[in-house]
């Protein structure tokens, strides 16, 4: 039954509204919200099962015609392995961050609007992953953005309003630009449906294809803005610091990936269909990707360098993580840049799969790190390095979680992050048969970025977790506080306080995510198989078009 496609979105939507309606009773509201989070995970799992499993197969594409109107006229939701992969990891991170939120956000805020906004953010993310219609994508972007705006400044304060102002204005510009691009695409091609768009571009007889490159370039900047790529990264550090920890976890873990997903879906599945001679001073080709390959490479390089260099010298753990996020998104984009210009289909698939695996790993690790940082702030009152130190002794479990998160981003095996790095390197190495210079450049960038990653995470670890306890740590954690499980508590005594339950719960969430990073590393085969299926689906334009428009015809028969 194709309802499985829309199920995650409906679960999130109903949960959002249910939390709005049940706001008078905090206990009920929390229960509804958590239940919704679990339901979302279940729906995502179901979707994953119907679309991707069994592992190793090519997967399926299931189309859902919202309102019963056939594609391309109505809006369709399309669940292929790519979408299911994205929804799947969004559901993991979002449940973790939600459970953390319940323990973290103050009761008044939860009652007022937090849960509703949180689930609407999930709705927006899910809609963006599933939709097969570019204007509908715009709508879900708006849903996602509106909730993120307000979640960023959920706790008012000078830093927060200032950060939100920049975030909001840049994204409002982005929305206007996106509308412009979508209008332009509709005017040139006469359709809003992605599959139809791909088909019309591939056909080329009924539409003017040449303007599409410029329009898709405009659109690209919107996705780069969402993903926080240089030179659209400006909003990232302040907004990430301002947002409550679980929201930052979602922003960095999931919302950013919507930009990445959109790039994969629209540029590799849809726009790549256009047969269009492209000539630039150094590159030429017959696909829009010939243009976007170098663009993505430049953006990825700039992001890796700026984010990496930026992170090394920050004075605050949150800020360091925010810059790291810029750098890591560069890593996510890098294999796409290689894939865009690669001649061999195997390298293209590998590149897209590398992007997806890296995105997955970053979602897991970065949300974990932001949550850990949030717990540090809640326990100690600050995340400034000059106030921290000695946390490895005072909060060993939390420290272990943080270390695993940092190591997975550094790429230490057998954590899942290692395989992300491995695939990025492999993609670049695979490009040797095409362009040795390009491959060499990509490898050099990736290696430089990897070294920077080690530099800033070792710094964070040394300054926050090792060393003598800083003033704030000494004041708030005088003894040893071990979190959920006591390990080797041979010294000091656990501090007990009213916050203990909440803190313990938060640390548990961090630990669970860390163990997931270990688990997905050791069981990487499953992750890789699904990422490969997703990459194949992303690159199979014809399959996508057939699935969407073909089944539309079949359905028209039923309805008519």
């Amino acid at each position, binding site marked *: 039954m194709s309802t499985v496609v829309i199920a995650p979105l409906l679960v999130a939507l109903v949960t*959002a509204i249910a939390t709005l309606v049940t706001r008078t009773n905090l206990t009920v509201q929390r229960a509804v919200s958590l239940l919704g989070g679990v339901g979302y995970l279940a729906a995502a799992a179901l979707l994953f099962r119907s679309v991707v499993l069994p592992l190793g197969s090519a997967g399926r594409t299931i189309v859902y015609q919202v*309102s019963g109107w056939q594609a*391309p*006229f109505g809006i369709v939701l399309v669940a292929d392995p790519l979408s299911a992969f994205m929804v799947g990891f969004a559901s993991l991170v979002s449940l973790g961050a939600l459970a953390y939120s319940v323990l973290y956000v*103050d009761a008044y805020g939860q009652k007022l609007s937090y849960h*509703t906004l949180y689930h*609407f953010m999930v709705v927006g993310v899910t809609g963006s992953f599933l939709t097969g219609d570019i*204007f509908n994508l715009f*709508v*879900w972007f708006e*849903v996602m953005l509106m909730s993120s705006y*307000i979640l960023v400044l959920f*706790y008012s*304060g000078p830093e927060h309003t200032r950060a939100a102002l*920049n975030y909001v*204005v840049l994204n409002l*510009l982005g929305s206007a630009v996106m509308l412009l691009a979508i209008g*332009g695409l509709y005017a*040139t091609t*006469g359709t809003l*449906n992605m599959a139809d768009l791909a088909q*019309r571009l591939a056909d080329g007889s*009924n539409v003017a294809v*040449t*303007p599409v490159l*410029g329009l898709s*370039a*405009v659109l*690209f*900047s919107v996705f*780069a803005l969402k993903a926080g790529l240089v030179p*659209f990264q*400006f909003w990232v550090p302040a907004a990430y610091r301002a947002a409550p920890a679980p929201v930052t976890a979602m922003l960095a873990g999931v919302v950013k990936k919507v930009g990445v997903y959109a790039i994969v879906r629209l540029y590799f599945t849809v726009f790549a269909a256009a047969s269009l*001679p492209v*000539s630039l001073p150094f590159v030429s080709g017959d696909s829009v990707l010939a*243009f976007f390959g170098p663009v993505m490479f430049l953006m990825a390089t700039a992001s890796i360098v700026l984010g990496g260099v*930026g992170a*090394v010298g*920050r004075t605050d753990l949150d800020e360091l993580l925010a810059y790291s996020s810029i750098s890591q998104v560069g890593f996510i984009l890098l294999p796409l840049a290689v894939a865009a210009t690669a001649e061999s289909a195997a390298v293209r698939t590998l590149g897209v799969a590398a992007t997806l695996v890296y995105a997955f790993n970053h979602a897991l690790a970065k949300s974990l790190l932001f949550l850990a940082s949030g717990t540090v702030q*809640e326990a100690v*009152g600050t995340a400034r390095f000059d106030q921290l130190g*000695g946390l490895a002794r005072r909060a060993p479990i939390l420290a272990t979680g943080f270390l695993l998160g940092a190591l997975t981003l*550094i790429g*230490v*095996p*057998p954590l899942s992050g290692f395989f992300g*790095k491995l695939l990025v*390197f492999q993609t670049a*190495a695979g490009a040797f048969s095409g362009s*040795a210079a390009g491959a060499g450049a990509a490898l050099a960038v990736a290696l430089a970025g*990897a*070294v920077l990653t080690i*530099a800033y995470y*070792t710094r964070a670890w040394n300054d926050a977790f*090792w*060393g003598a306890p800083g003033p704030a740590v000494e004041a708030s954690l005088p003894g040893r506080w071990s979190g959920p499980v006591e390990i*080797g508590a*041979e010294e000091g005594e656990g501090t007990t306080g009213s916050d203990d339950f909440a803190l313990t719960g938060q640390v548990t969430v961090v630990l669970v995510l860390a163990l997931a990073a270990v688990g997905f590393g050791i069981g990487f085969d499953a992750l*890789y198989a699904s990422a490969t299926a997703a990459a194949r689906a992303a690159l199979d334009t014809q399959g996508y078009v057939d699935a969407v428009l073909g089944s539309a015809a079949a359905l028209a028969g039923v309805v*008519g």
Partner: protein
Amino acid sequence: MQPTPEVVLAVVFLPFVAAALTPAVFRVLGERTAYFAAATALVCFGLVTQLSLAGAHGTVSYEWIPSLGVSLAFYVDGLALLIAFLASGVGVLILTYSGGYMHGEPGQAKYYATLLAFLGSMLGVALASDLISLFVFWELTSLSSFLLIGHYTSESASKYAARKSMLITVSGGLFMLVGFLLLVWASGQALPESTYSLVVLLENADAIREALTASGLLVPALVLVGLGAATKSAQVPFHIWLPNAMEAPTPVSAFLHSATMVKAGVYLVGRLRPLFLSEEAPLLGEWTLLFAILGLATMTVAAILAVSSTDIKELLAYSTASHLGLIVASFGFANEYGAEAGAFHILNHASFKAALFLVAGIVAHEAGTRQISKLSGLRKHLPVTAAIATVASLSMAGIPPFNGFYSKELLFEAAWYAGKEIGGLGYLFPVVAVFGSVFTFLYSVKFASLFFGEENDNLGHVHSPPATMLVPPAILGLLVLGISASATLGLGPETPINAFVGHVYGSVSPGDPHGFSVHFPTELSPYAAMSAVTILVGAALFPFYDRLHDGINALLRGPVRANWWYDGAVEGLSATSVRTIPSVQNGLLRTYATWALASVTVLALGGYAAAGVSLPAFEGFAITLPIFLVLLVAVVGAVAVDIAPSHVAGVLTLSILGFMVAIFYILADAPDLALTQLVVETLVLVIFLLVLNRLPAFYGEVNRSRAARDAVLALAVGATVFVTVLVTTAASPAEPIAGFLAENAGVPAEHPPFFTNAGGGGNIVNVILVDFRAFDTMGEISVVAMTALAILTLIRMRERGETQ
């Protein structure tokens, strides 16, 4: 004989399992956890011995990531067994020794768990035969040594040392990984299928080498893999992390320097030697150029640095780097003596270096200082220790008849033959080898001399070490004596030690292995002469040791030291970060918007240019007069907003623009839009006025040059929009989807009492909103509802901080 899979798995994973159990064990056993850990290592040692005695040779493989072609595979051969032997054997001694050394120290559960994981990782490195499996264990050794070096977490020296080792070895590891991937890529070119299996790569060494050479990747692959080995084995200029690593507890240093971590690098060089070095390899191929030079340079530089050391552990640390250089250089030479020297010296170095570190630990622990200047005459208080130290030091110095002499002699032989056959500058090889060895002699003798002579007045009471600390180095000392005896007696290849080294030799040489044996030189060969020169010059220089020490220290300042570069790079990076970021992320929306909009402009215009879009020809105004007039007023309104002298004036002119847009919608036959626009515009006006009421009259005076820059960007954006509108209005796609919507929105002429296949409404726009694209509307009303929530939250959540 094929190795038993269970045994191989047990060897590698037993330490990890024990590490996981350590916290629980510690609760029961307390400090006696040391013996639990030592027992674990002993079991591994026993299993390795069993494998070795059974003559195991072959592969054990399990599927891990089949879709990537990666498996959890192990390969048992001489080299693997040697390293596994050393790691587990020295491990037993180190863990036992720790029981005494770590007495009363905090964090022991973590210490033993990490040390066991370290042991397991090293065993994994030794035995792994899949490149990815190898890399996994490789990085785990880096990670566990990071944690061990930083064991005293609150010491800033520990933090510095741990970060340094992590930065250098993990980065090096990543370079090596890229090198591995090049090998895998080449295997894909050379073989039917690309492979991660080391065994397959080694079996097809010639084909792989050819593929690499053909694509010009031989040197890159060699250099990348070499970087991994060099960083791990502390080769110049990456040797700098090793002396700092002495911040770790001494047993860790002993382990790290003798049998684990640094041995991983030389292991890799040995392991890949037959891959890069064919039997008919040129004397001065890429391999030799890279590794012989790197190794000899390290051997010499590190030996000189050891002489400059003021701390016994620092001296030993540089000495380790120097001896690893010796091994790397040996493997670098493309002759059989090189392979023999490397294989034999791995064993010898482990035996004497582990002993010396444990001795250093006893000295530091019992005498309370590690300063060379404060130590002398220790023999009186530590007689057994002194004996061990003497034996081990003489072996390290390369003095016959101790085992260190024989492996060094083989290096001299290799260097001599290489020099002779290459000729000319090739003679630099033996010359440098002798030069470096002189310094080795000097610092080794210096170390031994600490136990002799007059007792230093500054030394307080020196305790006797406990048995747990004395027995392990004693065993190592006996091992040194045993190997020395075997070599000096000139026993044949079939004796256990020689047979064992012979197996190792087989692993690191291309072609068929042959038996291994050494014997005491009985005639004056050139290389025996080299040894003699080394010892004579060393002995002659020893009286001037302090002057040499001071002189080297005087020379080693600033950029001459690799540390200067490391610290400069790390601090420079940090300073760059601190300096540049505030000017990039300067908090000014103006900067952010400028970059973002300029990028959009560049992307868009670049896109149009790259696709060769041509602007349409002018075909008339294509617009009715009323629309033209309305648009004109709208533009005038917008201009007025830009130059509005006050907020109120601006809001009012903004409304003019809004209402003009509404009229435009009427003229464009969009009645719904016009109605909505009118009402919304009114609401916006009211809200604007309500909010403005609360805001101060700040308008920000316009700076001329800034305004000019902004105007340029504004014009660029305007031009982009102009081009976009022109290009897209000129396009006329066939059959836009709107046609279908218009046709199906209404009530069909013939219709059943209930239908879903048509909109059923006359207002097509509304039918689209509630039916065709009701899903969009669903999202839109969510946004509207969230706006309300947003404003509620903004106003009500004020004064509520995140951390309360």
